[in-house]
């Protein structure tokens, strides 16, 4: 075990994967010698050479198109899109190509080796082009898997699973926690399951669900609720496609209440899907409507970042609304 921040954990996962299989390569804008703008690929070019860790020209649609081809050839490309906000030129390649490669060919071909890494989310004074949480756009795309880790330990284990998963995975990294989240992480290879939620904290009065950086916000909100004598169960979905409805439903059948806290704009954020599914599966167990704390239905602002953000106070208020309904 070693103390690592989230970036170091990502770097360690890439290092393990590249050491294990020489068909793993990492590339993207500034990823090579410089090690990426956040330094997630630091030292990998020196260690594995320019053929396996390299800069690409500045073209996101090209990066993912290239990665699709490389994966179809049988490699394990780990393509970096510098910011989640800049993934959209590659939307066609991801939605129409990556996600449908296997299906459209009757499994003659697949790009299962592909992993797309991209930082997402706010809290870094980035305004609307360095802060978005675009996971819901992609969650509407059958054929993709979407993984969002909450801390360094989760990040390494889930990224290693993503790289060697036989399906293409969009791996979204909470950039606000890159250096802020520090924890014990094994130096050797280990994996964590994709599609399985984790009960982070057990409780009896209300279930609070989130993913990625929002889990930290939920933990702070639950601390406030505990001072009011509330026992909250916290669930980290870890992956939103596929997502673990069973774990959430089981918890809601116990607590009778569900709050979803999410960073993305309220309308059609992934919490909408969670709410719809849970009301189907737990209708008779629910003691109050499912509550959501989300971003506003506006682009992500700069000067009003604090006001926009679905912070611990808004999440705490949502918990109270759920309990006092």
């Amino acid at each position, binding site marked *: 075990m070693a103390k690592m921040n989230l970036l170091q954990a990502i770097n360690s996962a890439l290092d393990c994967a590249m050491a294990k299989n020489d068909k793993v390569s990492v590339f993207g804008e500034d990823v090579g010698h410089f090690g990426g*703008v956040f330094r997630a690929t630091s030292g990998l070019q020196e260690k594995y050479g320019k053929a396996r860790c390299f800069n690409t*020209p*500045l*073209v996101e*649609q090209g990066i993912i198109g290239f990665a699709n081809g490389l994966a179809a050839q049988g490699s394990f490309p780990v393509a970096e899109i510098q910011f989640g906000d800049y993934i959209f030129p590659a939307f066609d390649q991801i939605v129409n190509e990556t996600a449908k490669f296997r299906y459209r060919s009757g499994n003659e071909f697949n790009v299962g080796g592909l992993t797309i890494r991209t930082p997402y989310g706010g809290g870094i004074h980035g*305004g609307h082009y360095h802060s978005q949480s675009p996971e819901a756009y992609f969650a509407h795309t059958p054929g993709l898997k979407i993984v969002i880790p909450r801390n360094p330990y989760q990040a390494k284990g889930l990224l290693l699973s993503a790289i060697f998963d036989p399906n293409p995975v969009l791996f979204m990294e909470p950039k606000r926690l890159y250096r802020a989240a520090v924890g014990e992480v094994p130096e050797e290879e280990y994996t964590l399951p994709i599609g399985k939620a984790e009960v982070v904290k057990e409780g009896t009065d209300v279930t609070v669900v989130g993913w990625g950086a929002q889990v930290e916000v939920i933990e702070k909100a639950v601390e406030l609720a505990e001072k009011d004598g509330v026992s909250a169960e916290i669930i980290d979905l870890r992956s939103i496609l596929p997502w673990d409805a069973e774990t959430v439903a089981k918890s809601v059948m116990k607590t009778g209440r569900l709050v979803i806290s999410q960073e993305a704009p309220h309308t059609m954020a992934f919490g909408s899907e969670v709410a719809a599914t849970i009301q189907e599966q737990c209708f008779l167990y629910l003691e109050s409507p499912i509550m959501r704390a989300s971003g506003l239905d506006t682009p992500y*602002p700069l000067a009003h970042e604090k*006001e926009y953000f679905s912070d611990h106070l808004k999440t705490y208020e949502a918990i109270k609304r759920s309990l006092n309904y």
Partner: protein
Amino acid sequence: MSMENTAKTNVTSKLEVIPGHAVNIPVFQLLKEDGTVHKGAKLPAIDKELALKMFSTMQFIRLLDERMFAAQRQGRISFYLSSLGEEAASIGSAAALAFEDMIMGQYREQGALAFRGFTVEQFMNQLFSNEKDLGKGRQMPVHYGCAALNFMTISSPLGTQIPQATGYAYGQKHSPANKDAEKTCTLVYFGEGAASEGDFHAGLNMAAVFKVPVIFFCRNNGYAISTPASEQFAGDGIAPRATGYGMKAIRVDGNDIFAVYAATQEARRIALEEGEPVLIEAMSYRMAGHSTSDDPTGYRTKEEEEKWRAKEPMIRFRNWLIAKGWITEAEADQQMAAHKEAVLAELKKAETVPAPHVDEIITDVYDTPSEQLQVQLDALKAHIRKYPDAYPATAKGVK
């Protein structure tokens, strides 16, 4: 063939492979590095008043960049992006346009905006995201925009402005107001890195097909964050690509303000008189880091930087002006001191201007806020009233 395909096709029975570097475009230069003029070179017609305005803008931008970079380091603003070494490219090109021509920037053309008349106060209000910022505090620092100055608001995603410029210029060309004397064009800036984006291809191809008055102005400054041009493209830079689109091109020394001015003037003439787009590639060097978020020592050598420092654009222009007798050393220094005073005063002022009112959080998403957004705003204000200490920038305004 010509019925279906307008590319000229000569038939040959000899197998011929065209080399990848068949086009090699020289760099147009008028002012040498020491500020003297090439023998026989014809300088563009620039009078004293215009020359001094260009120089003053250059000094201002040099100073602004230096002060605001420092302000970011002091934690007073969240981000900054300097144009150090590239002032001649943006100011020389903006000076060759008519005021009514539209400028679409990437994010390193503060010189063009300052030349158009954006005030020190306006720069500061944007950089501090305060309530006086024309962009209402919504974008990161340096994402300027000003409709009154015909300068389109900047967007971070790279290259998106390139096809937009083609569309804007198409609108200009077909506007009923587009009379001979008042014809306008669009100039769009982007870097050699952004020229790798798909939008570059789309924008240039459509402009050539539709024959619109747009000037594609590429600042080739050698780097896209850490990625050197040598890892960005294998060909001879950006200018030769124009040939593939059937478009005219000029390659110019981006550090020579007279050459940039002359090149842009000619491009504008072609755009308006011949009704065709032109690609200009201005060769320069990004002397600063990409932004306050990176440290260039991680990806390039001091020797390389020094080599380019000798070619920087301000000294040669200053030397030329002094030799011409249009300014003295002392006057140039005084001008710089005046810029410094103005920048420091406005910086202090802008820092104390409040953040935009929280009501602005829902405006401009649509022409008028939807019912749903109004409900969200009301809930937000009730929340802020409950926890005023957690939202210090706006709590005062919601009492």
